[in-house]
């Protein structure tokens, strides 16, 4: 068998080196495109969801998110949670938030003048923040697309999530939005029975729905609007854990303080919901289906090329058999040829993938409505897809070679 493989390699190597280089370039190019199609289409589809998950974590939830129990209006004994978070060494930073249901109304003075007009008002979650703490956990404060974010002294200002404004989130999508609202405009915010006017300081756009459908103000101002019913009302904590720290370990320690009975403690992946995983799986299947088509096209290409190569060399195949070169050796030489094409194509594809596409998509994510789409590529995924392509190519190269090699030796020599 060793001799068979050695002679097959000898034949394949000479063929590759001495055949028309344009043929090699063409086949390798096709294989490279196939590899990229296989990896990139899947990577973009999965990356679309990964981008959403990443945005959710980066701009809203942090690594861990503590929220009030669904049946509660706020977190009970928030002070106990604060104490636990302060004492946990695995936590780098946390941001306590007050969240209240309310409404925001733009152009409210015009609605007084024209009472018959439909009021420019939408229901929102109004969030009170500690600006410094929020900045240490999420990128919300740096996701401003118009105006500026709040500072610790902006008592009379709010920042609005982009999805509440029609130019960022057209009403056609289904949600009610505010129209013609810009930084500097005045809006009226109502929480419970308390209404107050604020000036818009900025508009944030994070591509995380939860963050982009909120109105942000200083926590001190929202507390005032809640009429001081609770001295420290808190509804949410976004937590960032220290580098090289196990998320599960930190969560386990937080839960060991008995916080699980007071609030929901979830990782950002859990908090965003299982449906995201299901969408991701669906997109991955879709990507694989599209990729499979390209693998079939590549297989057919290799089949045709090897078949034409073998049939035009039928006489030489006959002569090789005639002088005693075994059929298996000749078949393996074509398998090596196919393997060479696919490996070179895959190598070219990997170089383009990691040298060009991945850095490009990192620097210029695709602007999807609900996420910044990244190219989601894992080493394992690349290895699996490369293997699929290589194996398919080998089979596609072997079959035509076998068809030609098994013909009668003399018929091949005489070209009958």
């Amino acid at each position, binding site marked *: 068998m060793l*001799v068979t493989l*050695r*002679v097959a390699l*000898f*034949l394949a190597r*000479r*063929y590759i*080196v*001495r*055949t028309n280089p344009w043929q090699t370039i063409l086949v390798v190019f096709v294989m490279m495109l196939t590899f990229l199609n296989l990896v990139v289409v899947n990577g973009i589809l999965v990356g679309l969801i990964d981008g959403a998950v990443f945005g959710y974590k980066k701009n809203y939830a942090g690594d861990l998110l503590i929220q009030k129990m669904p049946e509660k209006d706020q977190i009970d004994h928030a002070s106990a949670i604060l104490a636990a978070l302060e004492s946990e060494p695995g936590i780098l930073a946390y941001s306590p938030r007050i969240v209240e249901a309310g409404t925001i109304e733009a152009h409210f003075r015009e609605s007084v003048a024209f009472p018959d007009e439909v009021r420019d008002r939408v229901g929102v979650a109004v969030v009170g923040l500690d600006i410094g703490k929020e900045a240490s956990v999420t990128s919300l404060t740096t996701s401003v697309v118009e105006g500026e974010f709040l500072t610790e002294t902006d008592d009379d200002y709010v920042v609005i999530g982009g999805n509440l404004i029609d130019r960022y989130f057209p009403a056609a999508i289904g949600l009610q939005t505010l129209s013609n609202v810009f930084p500097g405009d005045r809006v009226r915010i109502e929480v419970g029975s308390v209404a107050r006017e604020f000036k818009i300081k900025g508009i944030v756009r994070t591509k995380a729905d939860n963050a982009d459908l909120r109105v942000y103000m200083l926590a001190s101002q929202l507390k005032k609007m809640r009429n001081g019913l609770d001295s420290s009302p808190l509804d949410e904590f976004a937590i960032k854990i220290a580098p090289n720290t196990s998320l599960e370990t930190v969560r386990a320690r937080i839960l060991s303080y008995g916080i699980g009975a007071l609030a929901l403690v979830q990782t950002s992946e859990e908090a965003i919901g299982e449906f995201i995983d299901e969408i991701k799986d669906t997109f991955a299947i879709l990507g694989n289906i599209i990729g499979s088509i390209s693998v079939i096209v590549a297989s057919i290409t290799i089949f045709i090329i090897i078949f034409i190569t073998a049939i035009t060399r039928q*006489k*030489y195949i006959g*002569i*090789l*058999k*005639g*002088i*005693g*070169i*075994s*059929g298996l*050796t000749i078949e393996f030489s074509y398998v090596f040829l196919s393997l060479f094409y696919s490996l070179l194509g895959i190598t070219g594809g990997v170089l383009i993938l990691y040298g060009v596409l991945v850095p490009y998509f990192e620097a210029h994510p695709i602007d999807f409505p609900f996420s910044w789409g990244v190219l989601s590529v894992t080493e394992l995924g690349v290895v699996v897809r490369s293997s699929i392509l290589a194996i398919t190519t080998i089979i596609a190269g072997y079959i035509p070679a076998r068809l030609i090699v098994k013909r*009668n*030796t*003399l018929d091949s*020599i005489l070209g009958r």
Partner: protein
Amino acid sequence: MALIKATGVKRIFKVGSIEVHALRGVDIEIEQGEFVAIIGKSGAGKSTLMYQLSILDHPTEGTIEIDGHITERMSSAERTSFRLNKLGYVFQDYALVPELTAEENVMLPLLMRGDGAISARLKARAVLDRLGLEDRVDRRPGRLSGGEQQRVSIARAIAHDPVILFADEPTANLDTETSAQLLQYMQDLHRAGQTIVMVTHELEYAAKAQRVIVVEDGRIKKAGTPKELELHQRRVHQS
């Protein structure tokens, strides 16, 4: 015991519903060290006979025994292996692999027999040197003359010291001078003890053989030394 013993060999080709009897029952014995020329007109069956004797083809009927091996009992792989180890071939149109250099073409059967690359290269170079091709070893067939290609073809056929060398019209595409040189090489090989079976339609070249078999209409019409068949007196080409 004869090196090749063919008994009652028939070869029938089917062309649609028509049966073409290329060989109609041939009996031949070829001894070790003989130089046999098979001659005949085009379509007489001389090449078909050589293909049967060299186990490139299967006879429809009859048996062929080579060096004590009954060839009908061999599987396809065994026949290939037998050809590799026992036989050498020189084809009419040289049949060199175009992507390989002269040296690599000669190395190929040696590598297949299990020789290492260095050993195969040394043996190939020695045979090519013997045939006067020492300055052509790195050339591919496209850059060799017809005569040079045929010498490379001979080198490939004899590099592994085959028991029998088969040559199918080896001078067909060569000019007179090159053909004469080629025949001289073959006679030298014969004198060194090589068994040779050559198909030709050139009486002049057949006359260089030790024994001549005349095939006509799928049968052996006559056989004997060139002198017995008076080939040396005939200059007319049978074609």
